C-alpha cells in the first residue's frame, strides 16, 4: 500500500497522447517519460499527491486489432515504470479506446497487483465489458471538460492506491460493479418500503434497491422428429440422489450434479434413494421418488412406443440458492452430455 507522493502511470490513445488523429491510429505501444497530452490534466488533478512518472500510449486501431498482444506489451511498459497507480483514459465515448483502457486496467490489476481506474461515458462498450472487474468512472461523452473529469478519476484512484474504503457507486461516481455489500442506512426497510410505495402510487420517480435480473427468455427448440422416434432424458433440480448421496451434492448453493443410471429399472425403489434438498418439503418425494423423477410412467411410454427410448441416465442436482453462474455451468455441461449421447428431448422437473 502506497503512502506519500504516489508514482502514477497514465494510459492514453494516439489522439490524447498528441501523436495524431485517425491517421496515427495504427501506432503500437510506446512510453514517454512524465505526463504528455491528457496525462497533464491527471498531473494537475494529482497536485502534490502524486507524480505522473510515465505516459503509455497506443493507437486505437493497433489496440483493437491486436487486442491480446497489445495488452501484454502495454502491461510490460506499465510494469517498467513501477507505478503505485494506473489511470487509463478517460475514454469518453471512444469505443476502441474505452475497450483498450478496460483491458489494460484489468490486466494491470490482476497481473501486477497495481490498482487501476479508468473513465468513460455510459454508452462506451468498454463499460459493459469491464465494469465488473475495473472501477470505471462515469464521464461525459466528449473531452470538453478534461480537468474535472480527470479530478474524479484521480480522487477514486488515490483512494484505491492508499487502500482506503471505497463507498458506493453514487459516492464515487463509478459504474456499479455488480457486487453487493451490506451497509447500514438511516431509515428502516419498512419506512423505505412505504415511502417507495407512496411515490409509486403518486406516479413519482422511485429507485428500487434491487436491480431487475436479466433472465433472457430461452425459446424451447422444436423437436425435429416424432416422439415415437425420440430419445427422452429425465433431468431434475429437485435433489433426487441414490442413498448415501455418492456425489455429495450440497443441500443448498449446489456446485455439483449427479448422473445416475436407471438401466434395467422399470421403477425407482424408494429405499434406494434420498434427497438432500433444503428448499422444499421432501417428505413426499422420499416416500415415492416418481413424484419427482417419473421413471415408472416414462418406462410405460417407452414400452407402448409413445416415446422412442428413455435415456438410461438421469441427471440430478439441488436447485436452491444456487448461483446463476453455477446453474448456467451445470446446465451447459448436462446439455453437452445429453447431446453427445444422442438425446432428443428432456423432461425437466423442478420444485
Amino acid at each position, binding site marked *: 500500500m502506497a503512502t506519500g507522493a504516489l508514482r502514477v502511470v497514465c494510459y492514453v490513445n494516439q489522439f490524447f497522447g498528441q501523436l495524431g488523429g485517425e491517421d496515427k491510429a495504427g501506432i503500437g505501444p510506446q512510453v514517454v517519460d512524465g505526463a504528455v497530452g491528457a496525462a497533464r490534466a491527471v498531473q494537475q488533478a494529482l497536485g502534490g499527491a502524486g507524480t505522473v512518472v510515465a505516459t503509455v500510449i497506443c493507437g486505437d486501431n493497433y489496440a483493437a486489432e491486436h487486442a491480446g498482444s497489445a495488452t501484454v506489451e502495454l502491461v510490460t511498459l506499465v510494469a517498467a515504470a513501477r507505478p503505485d497507480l494506473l489511470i487509463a483514459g478517460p475514454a469518453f465515448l471512444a469505443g476502441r479506446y474505452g475497450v483498450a483502457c478496460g483491458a489494460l486496467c484489468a490486466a494491470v490489476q490482476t497481473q501486477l497487483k497495481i490498482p487501476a481506474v479508468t473513465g468513460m461515458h455510459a454508452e462506451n462498450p468498454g463499460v459493459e465489458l469491464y465494469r465488473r472487474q475495473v472501477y470505471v468512472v462515469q464521464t461525459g461523452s466528449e473531452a470538453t471538460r478534461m480537468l474535472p473529469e480527470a479530478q474524479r478519476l484521480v480522487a477514486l484512484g488515490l483512494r484505491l492506491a492508499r487502500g482506503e474504503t*471505497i463507498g*458506493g*457507486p453514487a459516492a464515487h461516481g463509478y459504474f*456499479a*460493479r*455488480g*457486487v*453487493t*455489500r*451490506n*451497509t*447500514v*442506512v*438511516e*431509515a*428502516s*426497510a*419498512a*419506512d*423505505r*418500503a*412505504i415511502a*417507495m*410505495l*407512496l411515490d*409509486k*402510487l*403518486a406516479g413519482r420517480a*422511485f429507485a*428500487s*434497491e*434491487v*436491480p*431487475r*435480473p*436479466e*433472465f433472457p427468455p430461452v425459446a424451447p427448440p422444436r423437436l425435429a422428429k416424432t416422439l415415437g422416434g425420440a430419445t427422452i432424458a429425465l433431468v431434475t433440480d429437485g435433489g433426487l440422489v441414490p442413498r448415501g448421496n455418492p456425489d455429495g451434492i450440497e443441500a*443448498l*448453493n449446489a456446485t455439483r450434479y449427479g448422473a445416475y443410471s436407471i438401466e434395467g429399472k422399470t421403477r425407482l425403489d424408494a429405499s434406494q434413494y434420498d434427497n438432500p434438498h433444503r*428448499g*422444499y*418439503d421432501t*417428505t413426499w418425494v422420499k416416500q415415492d421418488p416418481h413424484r419427482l423423477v417419473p421413471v415408472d410412467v416414462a418406462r410405460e411410454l417407452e414400452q407402448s412406443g409413445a416415446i422412442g427410448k428413455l435415456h438410461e441416465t438421469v441427471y440430478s442436482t439441488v436447485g*436452491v*440458492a*444456487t*448461483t*446463476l*453462474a453455477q446453474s448456467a455451468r451445470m446446465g451447459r455441461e448436462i446439455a453437452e452430455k445429453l447431446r453427445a449421447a444422442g438425446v432428443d428431448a428432456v423432461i425437466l422437473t423442478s420444485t
Partner: protein
Amino acid sequence: MRLELRWSDVDELVTAPATRLVGKRLEVDLEGLSELLSADSRLARIRLDLAHPGERCRIGRVFDVIAPRAKMDGGEDFPGVLGAVTRVGQGRTSALAGVAVVATDQQTDNVGTLAVIDMAGPNAALSAFGRTHNLVISAWPAPGADRSEYLAAVRLAALKAAVHLARAAHAVEPDRVEVFELPPSPRVPAELAHLPRVAYVFQIHSHQRPTGLDEGILYGDPVRRMLPTIVHPNEVLDGAVLRGFMGRSVTTWTTQNHPMIRTLYAGHGRTLWFAGVVVTVAQATEPERVRSAFLAANLVAYTLGADGAVLTKIGGGAPHVDMAQAAAQCEALGVRTTAIVEDMSTDGSAEGMLLFDFPGVDALVNVGSSQEPLTLPAVDRVIGADDLAPKLLGETRITYGGLCGAIEQVGSTRVMAEVR
C-alpha cells in the same frame, strides 16, 4: 378495534427475592421464575441468565426473542399457545421497553437456524437485542421429548417469562401509553377519502418445512392448510402471531413490535389510509402457491379496496418467489406494490439478488444479505451455549444472518445490500 400498549421503561434488570418494577429497575425473582418454567415434563432442566447492554457478553444459540407483554383486565396472553383462544388486539396491555426474553435452543441438529446476540462491540448496534436487557432462557429436553416438543416447550417457557416480567408493570403507572385504533376499513371520513389506501400482505410462515402439531403460529394454529385471511393489525401487535420454529431473520419480538404495521399506523390519516392486513403462508407446491397468490390479491383489491400493497416474506427462496407472485397478482388487479426482499445472492453478485422478474414488481426494498461474512470480536462471557463457549469467546466469523436481529425481514432492519 382499540389497543393500548402501556409502556414502562426499564434501564436496569436485577435478580431479587420478588419480581417487581421499582422506578426503572426491574427486579426479577429468578429462582421463582425458574421453578415456574420448569413445570413442563418436556424439559429436564432450565437455567436463567441476565445479559446487559454494554457487557462484553455473547448470547449463543438464539432460537427466538419475545417482547415482555401482559394483558390487563383479564385478557389472555399469546392466545392459543399460552392463553385460551380468544381475540386480542383490544383493551390494555402492559409492555416493558428495554427488556427482552431470549430463548435458546440447546439441541444441535440444526445450527443453521440459530444465531447469536452481542451485547457490546460494533455488532451490538446492528440488532435491537444488543440494546435491551435480556433474560436468557437455556432449557434442556427431557428424555423422550422429540424436537418439536422440545421447541414448543422452550417457546412456551419464553412466553411465560415474558408475561411474568410484564405483569410487574400492572401495578405502576406507565411512562407512556401508545394507542392503536383503526376503524373498519371502508369507513373513511370524506375529508380523508383522497388518501391512497394501503394494505399490508404479511407472510407469517413458509411450508418448506411442515409445522409440528404444537407449532402454533396464528392464535395457536400451525397454519398447515391456511389460505390468505384478513386480521386486524392490532391482533398482530398483541400476541396473535408468533414465529414458527424455523425462521432465522425474523423474531417474535419484531412481530410484536411490527415495524411495517407501526409505519402504516404512523402514516394513517396523514399520507395514507391503512386499509388492513392480509396474512399468508408461503406454500409448498405450485397449485397451492398460485391459489394463495390470487386469493391474497383478491382480498387486497376487492375486499380491502386497496390502491397499494406492501409485502414481506419469511425465510428463503420459495417464500421470496411466493411473495413476488402475490405481488404480481396485486399488480395485475391494478394494485401498486412494493416488497421487502433479502439479497438472495449466494456469491455476492448483483445478478443473483433476485429470484424472480414479474411485470410490475419493480419497487423493491432490501434488508441486506444474510450470507455476507461478519466478524465478531472476542468477548468475556458466553451464555446460552455452554458447550460452544470455547469457540464463541474468541473472535468469531459468522454471517449477517447469524446475528439475531441484524436482518429482520419484516422491515425493522437498517442493513441494506448496496450494489457496488
